Structure formats: structure tokens, C-alpha cells
């Protein structure tokens, strides 16, 4: 029957996106710290203004333990032995002799008294709290102060009924918590038992899940699901309450993308659709307060949105005064990257790539106009709409659907969840744009290292891989890398990541298939699927193990083929049987799909097993030996276009190793 610990760190508003990770770190470290006291994490919650963790069942103190201190060897001179005893505050007869691999040594077994829980916590908590790795911290109250995400304003820390005595920057831990800024008391005393209830009385809903549910429950029908926005709102409020506002219908003439972006990214509003799925002249804002009885908050939000939409309308109208086609030259004064020139230069390179890779008229036109929206007021104001605005304007200016949708989709896929461009022209443009960026940056040494990737080259490369794997284009990685070796490797790394993490293929299967050729991603996927299917059959893994053995034998013999198998040199029926089985399978495999080929290959297992059981490859007669090596070589080579089977790690072995 232990005691409970409650820690609440009261902080000025923490940026919402940092809260879950910060809380997780605090909770993990606290659990590690208290591990010697037993106990379990019973609560780990946060709002913008507090991180709270509760543990239950902590023991009063750590267990006493013994620590063995090693001293001089048995044969050391008496002064040394006495010195050792004195250093440990005991007499020589209290020492023990302990036998070790190196001989017999004097040792002293020190009894270490377990620390009281409260002392252990008081000593460790300041460092533990300040050790939370926030993405960007501030120093306060000045030089010699501490770094944290924002100033800490109170610390509540109770072990049972006692306050754990510690302080950070002069803020002493105590029994007080704080309420909602407008609706609650600024400070009030709590106990571990009434903590959450007291917070609720003071308009703080402690649990993220409850705040989230409170928002979701109040969302009207037709609200567009938006998990990321919901998460933001959950962690930007202590007492969230959604309200619905309206705007004038005539704003619906503006492109839906613009309206949604203004609402979503600039105002953190949910947008709403009507029964037919069209955008409605409504929005949902989430307040950090309990209610809006006089409609003041709704009125205020409507007013702000109106001003934003008016701006957007103004930008739209101004932008239409100069067509995209007339803006190409203006790209000369928009820098892409200091060493890589302007967006005009980039446009010219991308057009060239699209032409080289067989782009049609629409793809070429899209490439020419792709970046012109960077000179438009709408994109200057809403940078996240680059590409999309270009696509919308292209359509409005009569560029044709193919061109417009290619421009619209040029930055796709923007994330792992995002789809790739819808059309072949869009895919080609997106690919050419990304490849140009990658080649350019690699060319001037801007290669991502560790967490540093300012030009988002990993994301660009990931997009390239996805478009190749999932799109309609017939382009090879080698072609894209354009002879830049590091870029080729970089793309293959991204392909590995994509195939394992995103598509879920086993790592060794991916390695095996890529080792047999990585440039044609569509083909890689075909081979990979075949390997995955055959992997599950009983003969495959043992056969893969035999391939590994073959590879080792051939490597050791430094044998690289060249000859043909001479049946006359066979000495053992097992060699003859394997050769016959192989020829039969090889005959079936030619022209067959990867799946069939591998299924046929798997049938070789009994013959291969028998061969290794009966036949010694290293025969004394060099001709016999060479013949056997040739047999193995032919066998291995026949299937090497599909995968390098020696890379397959048998499942049994895997479990064994771990």
C-alpha cells in the first residue's frame, strides 16, 4: 500500500504541437526515476498551461541495497589493505575475500540505505523537469536563469499529503494549482484526490481525450473531418467550446481552396459542407471558454473572417489583371536558390526535363507556367496555396484542364498521406520539378545530413519514389539521378524506406529484391510481391538458405562462371538429379511471371537439399569441381534477376538471433 505522487507544472501557454511530446518525455522520465519505489503511472495529461503526471503506489523509501567495493589483492602489503579499510570507514576484519577470475581480492560490502521517496524526488525533479527537450526554448528571467519552453508560474507537487520540497527559478513547489485564465480562480489549493474535480470547477478540462470529445460532440453535421486541426484545438484550449458562424454567400464565388485555407490555416476554423458536399457559407470556431451567450465571440470571428475574405477577393481580382502566361519573364526576379538561380532558370530546366522524358504538349505548357503563381498576390499572402492557385488561375484563363490540373498538382505528394498527381502530365511535372531541385542541391553540396534538411529534399525524393511506384510513368531511377552518384544512393535509400515503412514489405525481402536491380521501381514491386507470396511457402526459406550457401561456396572459390555444365563429369546421382530438375524448371520459368518463376524455383528444394547432402563440391579432380561450381552458378544466376536470395534471413534464424 503505497502513496500517490502528483506533479503539475504550471506554465505560460505552451505551443500546442509541442505538448504531447513534452508530456510523454516528462512521464517516461518520472516513471524511470520512481522505478526503485515501485508505483505506476496513473495519469499523464496536459493543457496549454499545465503538464500533469500522477503515479500511484509509491513506496515510502527505496529498498536498502548492498554495494560491493573492490580493494587490493590478497597478497598486497598490509598498509594497502588497512588503507582500503580505513577509506571505507571499517576495520580490516570487516573486509571480505572474494575470488575473481584475476585472483583473490579484498572487498567491502557496503550497506546502502535506500533514500526516502520524498528526498529522492526533491533532489531529482528540478533537473528532470528542466530536461524536457523542447524544440525551442527561452531563457528567463535572464542570464544565469533557466531554459524552458515558457516561464513556469507554479509547481504543484504532492507525495500523499506532503509537498515535495523543491524549487525552480525561485518558484517553490506547493499545493496550489491554477484555473482557466478568465473563468477560474488564479490559484487554489488541491489534494491528490480532488485535483481533477477542482480543475473542472475552475473551468479546466484536464484530459486531452475529453477536450477532444467535447469539441467533436458539438460539431454540426457537414463539418469536414480534420484530425490535425482537432488536435491543435485540443491543445490550444483548456475549456473548448465550438460555435458556428456564417459568412455572406457571395464569398462562395471565390475558389473553395482559398476559402478553406483562410479558414483552416489562418483562423483555425473547421469548414462546413452542405448536403450535396459543396462548401457552405458557414464555419466552426472553437473558443477557449464556456459559452457565448451574447454572440459576441461569434460576431467577432465573423468580422475577422470577412476582412480576410475581402483581402482574398482583392488579391484574386488584382491577379487576374495579368495572365500567368504573361508572368513567365517576371520569374527572373524570383530567386529559387542563390547558387541555382531564379525561378525562370528553374522553369527552363524543368521544361527541358519534361521534354526529355517524353512529355506531351499539355505537360510542357504546364511546366512553362508552373511557377508563375509565385508572382501572384494570392500566393504571396497564402504561400501554402502555391501550385493550387496556379492551377485555378490556369483553368480560369482557359489553359485547358490537362494543363490546369498538372499545375494544380505539381507539389503533390506533399506528405506520406497525400495522393500523387492525378494525371500523367501532373506526375511528369511534379517529378521533373523535384528531380531538378534534387540534382541542383546535390550538385552544390546541399545534401541532407541527420535532422538537417532545409530544402526538404527527403520529402522531394520520397515524392519521386511514390510517383514512380504508384504512377503511370515508365522512368528509371538511374535516369532521374542523371549520373549524380550520391543522388542515386539517396533515392534508393528512400525507396527502401518506402517499401518497408510505407508498403510494409519485410526488410530482408526488400534488400534481396533491390540487390537484383533497383532502378525500375514498378518491376521492383512486381518482384517484391512475388517474393512475399513465395516466402510463405514451406520450401522457400530453406531454399534461400541453400542459395546463401551456394553464394558462399562460389565466393570462396572466386568462381564467376563462364563454362557450361558437362553431364559426363557428373559422379553422383544427386548432381545429375539436380541438373535435370533445374533444366526442367528453367524451361518452365522462361517467359513466366515472377510469381510462377519463384513457385517453380521452390520446387527445386528437395533436389538442392539432396545435392548438398550427398555431394562435396570441392572434389579432388579440378574438372569435376569446376563442373559442380558451374552447376551451382547456373542455378543461382537463373533467378538472380528477381532477387538476391542470399539476402533473405530465415525467420527461424531471426527469432534465434533476437
Amino acid at each position, binding site marked *: 500500500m503505497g502513496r500517490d505522487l502528483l506533479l503539475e507544472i504550471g506554465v*505560460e501557454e505552451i*505551443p500546442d504541437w509541442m505538448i504531447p511530446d513534452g508530456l510523454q518525455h516528462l512521464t517516461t522520465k518520472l516513471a524511470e526515476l520512481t522505478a526503485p519505489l515501485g508505483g505506476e503511472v496513473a495519469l499523464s495529461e496536459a493543457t496549454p498551461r499545465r503538464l500533469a503526471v500522477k503515479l500511484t503506489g509509491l513506496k515510502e523509501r527505496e529498498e536498502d541495497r548492498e554495494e560491493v567495493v573492490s580493494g587490493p589483492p590478497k597478497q598486497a602489503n598490509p598498509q594497502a589493505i588497512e588503507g582500503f579499510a580505513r577509506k571505507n570507514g571499517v576495520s580490516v576484519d570487516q573486509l571480505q575475500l572474494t575470488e575473481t577470475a584475476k585472483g583473490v581480492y579484498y572487498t567491502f560490502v557496503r550497506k546502502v540505505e535506500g533514500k526516502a521517496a520524498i528526498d529522492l524526488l526533491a533532489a531529482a525533479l528540478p533537473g528532470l523537469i528542466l530536461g524536457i527537450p523542447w524544440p525551442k*526554448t*527561452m531563457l528567463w528571467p*535572464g542570464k544565469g536563469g533557466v531554459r524552458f519552453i515558457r516561464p513556469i508560474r507554479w509547481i504543484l507537487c504532492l507525495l500523499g499529503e506532503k509537498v515535495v520540497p523543491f524549487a525552480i527559478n525561485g518558484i517553490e513547489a506547493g499545493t496550489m494549482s491554477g484555473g482557466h485564465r478568465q473563468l477560474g480562480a488564479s490559484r487554489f489549493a488541491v489534494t491528490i484526490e480532488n485535483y481533477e474535480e477542482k480543475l473542472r470547477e475552475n473551468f479546466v478540462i484536464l484530459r486531452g481525450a475529453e477536450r477532444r470529445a467535447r469539441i467533436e460532440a458539438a460539431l454540426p453535421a457537414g463539418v469536414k473531418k480534420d484530425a490535425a486541426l482537432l488536435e491543435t484545438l485540443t491543445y490550444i484550449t483548456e475549456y473548448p467550446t465550438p460555435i458556428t458562424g456564417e459568412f455572406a454567400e457571395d464569398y462562395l464565388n471565390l475558389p473553395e481552396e482559398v476559402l478553406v485555407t483562410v479558414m483552416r490555416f489562418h483562423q483555425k476554423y473547421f469548414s462546413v459542407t452542405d448536403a450535396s458536399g459543396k462548401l457552405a457559407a458557414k464555419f466552426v470556431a472553437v*473558443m477557449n471558454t464556456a459559452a457565448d451567450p*451574447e454572440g459576441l465571440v461569434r460576431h467577432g470571428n465573423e*468580422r475577422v473572417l*470577412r*476582412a480576410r475574405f475581402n483581402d482574398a477577393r482583392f488579391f484574386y481580382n488584382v491577379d487576374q489583371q495579368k495572365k500567368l502566361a504573361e508572368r513567365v519573364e517576371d520569374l527572373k526576379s524570383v530567386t529559387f536558390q542563390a547558387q541555382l538561380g531564379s525561378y525562370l532558370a528553374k522553369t527552363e530546366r524543368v521544361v527541358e526535363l519534361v521534354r526529355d522524358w517524353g512529355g506531351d504538349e499539355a505537360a510542357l505548357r504546364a511546366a512553362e507556367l508552373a511557377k508563375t503563381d509565385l508572382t501572384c498576390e494570392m500566393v504571396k499572402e497564402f504561400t501554402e496555396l502555391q501550385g493550387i492557385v496556379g492551377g485555378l488561375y490556369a483553368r480560369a484563363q482557359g489553359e485547358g484542364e490537362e494543363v490546369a490540373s498538372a499545375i494544380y498538382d505539381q507539389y503533390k505528394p506533399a506528405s506520406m498521406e497525400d495522393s500523387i498527381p492525378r494525371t500523367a502530365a501532373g506526375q511528369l511535372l511534379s517529378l521533373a520539378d523535384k528531380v531538378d531541385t534534387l540534382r541542383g542541391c546535390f550538385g552544390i553540396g546541399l545534401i541532407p545530413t541527420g535532422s538537417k534538411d532545409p530544402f526538404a529534399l527527403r520529402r522531394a525524393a520520397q515524392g519521386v519514389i511514390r510517383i514512380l511506384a504508384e504512377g503511370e510513368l515508365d522512368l528509371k531511377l538511374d535516369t532521374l539521378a542523371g549520373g549524380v552518384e550520391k543522388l542515386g544512393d539517396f533515392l534508393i535509400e528512400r525507396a527502401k524506406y518506402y517499401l518497408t515503412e510505407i508498403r510494409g514489405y519485410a526488410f530482408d525481402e526488400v534488400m534481396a529484391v533491390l540487390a537484383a536491380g533497383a532502378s525500375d521501381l514498378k518491376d521492383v514491386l512486381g518482384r517484391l510481391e512475388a517474393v512475399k507470396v513465395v516466402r510463405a511457402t514451406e520450401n522457400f526459406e530453406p531454399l534461400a538458405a541453400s542459395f546463401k550457401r551456394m553464394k558462399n561456396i562460389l565466393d570462396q572459390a572466386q568462381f564467376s562462371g563462364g563454362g557450361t555444365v558437362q553431364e559426363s563429369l557428373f559422379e553422383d546421382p544427386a548432381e545429375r538429379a539436380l541438373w535435370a530438375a533445374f533444366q526442367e524448371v528453367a524451361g518452365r520459368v522462361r517467359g513466366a511471371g515472377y510469381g510462377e518463376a519463384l513457385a517453380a524455383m521452390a520446387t527445386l528444394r528437395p533436389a538442392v537439399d539432396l545435392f548438398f547432402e550427398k555431394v562435396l563440391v570441392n572434389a579432388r579432380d579440378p574438372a569435376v569441381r569446376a563442373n559442380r561450381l558451374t552447376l551451382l552458378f547456373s542455378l543461382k544466376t537463373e533467378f538472380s534477376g528477381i532477387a538476391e536470395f542470399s539476402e533473405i534471413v530465415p525467420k527461424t534464424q531471426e527469432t534465434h538471433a533476437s
Partner: protein
Amino acid sequence: MNTYQEMIFRLKQYWAERGCIITEPYDVEVGAGTMCPETFLRVLGPEQYRVAYVQPSRRPADGRYGENPNRLYKHSQLQVILKPTPEDVIEQYLGSLEAIGIDLTKHDIKFEEDNWESPTLGAWGIGWQVMLDGMEITQFTYFQQCGGVDLDLVPAEITYGLERLCAFLQDRESVYEIQWTPEFAYGQVRLKEEQQFSVYNFEMAEVTTLWKLFELHEGECQRLIDLYRSLETGQERFPVLPTYDQVLKCSNLFNLLDARGAISVTERVGVIGRVRKLAVGVAGIWVDQQYGNRKAAA
């Protein structure tokens, strides 16, 4: 009626009651209240300071010929510097909103992450934009560095956008409709200025003259910085503050050139770097003059 000037009086009164010195605007053109010496230089060093002032902020590129209801070439900021930051700084700030008649229990207030950085001043801080019913009304920053110098005491800088705030209080769609006094609207006081300065800034400012002025002020500033650095004695009476004015002149000329479209994107970084070099230089000699241990050596 909570007029524009009444709102300003109340805010000044509120901060005066909390120990702030109330000063008049600095009389050199600035792009933001932060650039005034009362902020830029005062935040340096170990002395406590509390000041509040209204500062007209000129941003030539934001001008809209008086035609956009929310964008102005010159808007007014109330700038509050609390050094060091009091523990209840946010409560004090919220109290100032109540002082101008906002009943916080009836409104929605959120503090959204917004860190501030000024490349031209070599300054940055951590903070929020304060949202009132979905509208940004205040920029709240804990300064961390100024002129490339780490701060001894971290001050809170509270910057209110006065026109916006007043438009909210008076529920006006356009800043030009704000009642400055019961008889006079904001537009009657300022519209001509917005129109004429937009014409000048966007169309008529003579680019070669602006560049010439920029170079003259830059040269004068650098000359003074170099002179200070070469001094062996007499630093105490050196005119560092006039040197800083030269930085402000350069910064404003840069903004004008930018609005005039005279600075290409490629050049931009370079010109910003030139202004920053001056700002950092002045911050350095200011810290040396005010807080260096040179006196002991002399």
C-alpha cells in the same frame, strides 16, 4: 463611446499605474516600436526599466492608397517594455484589456505561438500572438537577443495594434471609420496621409536619391562606430545615440526602396545584412559604453 484617443489614454494610464514611464513617440521614422532606442537599447544591460509609448510605425510596402479597410502605410503601436518581466505579466496584460472595456468573461482569448525575429536588428524573442475572438490584437514577446547581444534580463515586450483593437471595440469594418474623437473619424485625420504617402512610396520616390541617402547614412553610421572603436579614452561622452539614429534612417530607406520595387530578391539579403551590421555595431558600442569595465581601466 470608447474613442480611439480615449482607448489610448486608458492604456497609458493603466501602464503608468503599473510603474511605466510614459514617453511620447520617438521622432525618427521606424518600421516598428521595437526599433526605438527606448526598446532596442534599453533592453540591453542589467538595469530594470519599464516604459510605454505609442509609436507610429511606417511600413511603406503595406500602404494601400487608403483603399483597403485594414491595411495602412502608417499604423500606431502601443509598445510596453517590462524589464525584468513581472511574474504576473500576462495577468497585467489581460487587465489592460479590461481597462479599455473588454469583458474577458464574454470573449475568447487565446495565446498562439508566434516567435519574433528581426534580421535587420539581429534580434529575436519567443512569444505569442494574442487572439481576441479570432483577431490578432497583440504581439507578446520575451526578448532573448538584441543587436546580437544576449540579454541580461529578459524583458516582456507587449505590442498592441491600436487601430485594429479600436476597430474591434467600436465594431467598425474599416479603420477609417473609427471614431478618433466623438466628432472626428480616423479617416478625417489620416486618410490624406495614407493616400499621398502611398503615391510617393510606390510611384514617385526617386530611387537614386534613396540609394544615395541610404549610403550617406550608412557611411555616417559606420564612421561613428569605427571612431568609437578607435577611442582610447573619452568613450563616456561619445554620441552613440545619434549613431543609432543613423541605423533607423537606413532601415526606413531600405523599406522605402523595397516598396518602390528597387531591391531585387537577390539583393535583399545583402542590404538587410548591411543594416544588421550597423545595428549590431551600435548595440556593441552601446553595451561597451554603458556597461563595459573600461572605466575601471581608465
